[in-house]
């Protein structure tokens, strides 16, 4: 892969990849490290020139594997509060999503994020997570049900207050 192609891929994927790792692990410092490690592995794999559309699921797959390794080792068990620098805070929204992500299982967080934030199709999610594409639909459905229930609970609690 030549440097110019890499620059284009990096520009198109670094931000979403960082957000994915940061929200799944709950730790921006881990996201900084893992994003660099992901691109390092991507480049050392000595792939031929790739289109952005092909590279994206591949990069998310590497990041997912790195995150899974950390979880297997028992790391990132606790979430650290990211500091909001230079931007206004929408406290309700922020607490909702962070609470939601914390209460979901890692696999559910991954599926929801890839489907609803990245807009990936089921086959792309399968490529990014290593799961069978046939099982994505049902797993995603369950994750969505659980997330919706948690959001509704939060809404009810806010209304009661």
């Amino acid at each position, binding site marked *: 892969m030549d*440097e110019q192609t890499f620059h284009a891929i990096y520009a198109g994927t670094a931000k*979403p990849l*960082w957000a994915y790792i940061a929200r799944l692990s709950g730790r921006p410092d881990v996201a900084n490290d893992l994003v*660099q490690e992901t*691109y390092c592995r991507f*480049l050392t794999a000595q792939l031929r020139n790739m289109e952005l559309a092909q590279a994206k699921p591949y990069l998310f797959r590497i990041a997912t594997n790195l995150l899974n390794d950390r979880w297997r080792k028992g790391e990132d068990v606790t979430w650290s509060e990211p500091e909001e620098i230079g931007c206004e805070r929408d406290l309700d929204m922020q607490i909702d999503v962070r609470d939601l992500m914390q209460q979901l299982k890692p696999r559910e967080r991954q599926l929801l*994020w890839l489907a609803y934030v990245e*807009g990936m199709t089921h086959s792309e999610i399968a490529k990014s997570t290593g799961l069978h594409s046939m099982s994505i*639909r049902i797993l995603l459905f369950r994750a969505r049900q659980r997330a919706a229930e948690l959001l509704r609970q939060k809404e009810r609690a806010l209304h009661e207050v």
Partner: protein
Amino acid sequence: MKCDREQQVIEATRNGLWTSSLRDHLRHCALCTQTELIAASLRGDAVKAERLLDLPPAGMVWRRAQATRRERAVQRAARRPFLIVGALGIVYSVVFLLWGIFQIPQSVYRVFIAPPGLTEHVAITGVVLSAILAIAGSCVLVLETKR
């Protein structure tokens, strides 16, 4: 349970382009309402998360990856010579030990029988010890290189 327009709802949440028919569909479809609720919450959070970014420039990541690639290539290249050196070390040590045993068999027996302090005794103990250490060292070298 699946709605055919779910992907359209996700796309609309991502790019903000809601057609009137999609809005109308959203009012009647419980699944898509659920999807929109979650997608909007996560998307809003993603936009915020991206504002916290402090990523290194692409050039720096590229250079770091190139350095890692070179380092791994050197490691791969150095692996075979280390394996050969380790194997030769084992062969040399075994031959040396056998030679030492068969060359001076009487002295070997005397080590265990005669009282200590003899020059032969010290020399033979040294030969045996160095051969054992060479074998152990070669084994460690081979195992480490294989790992």
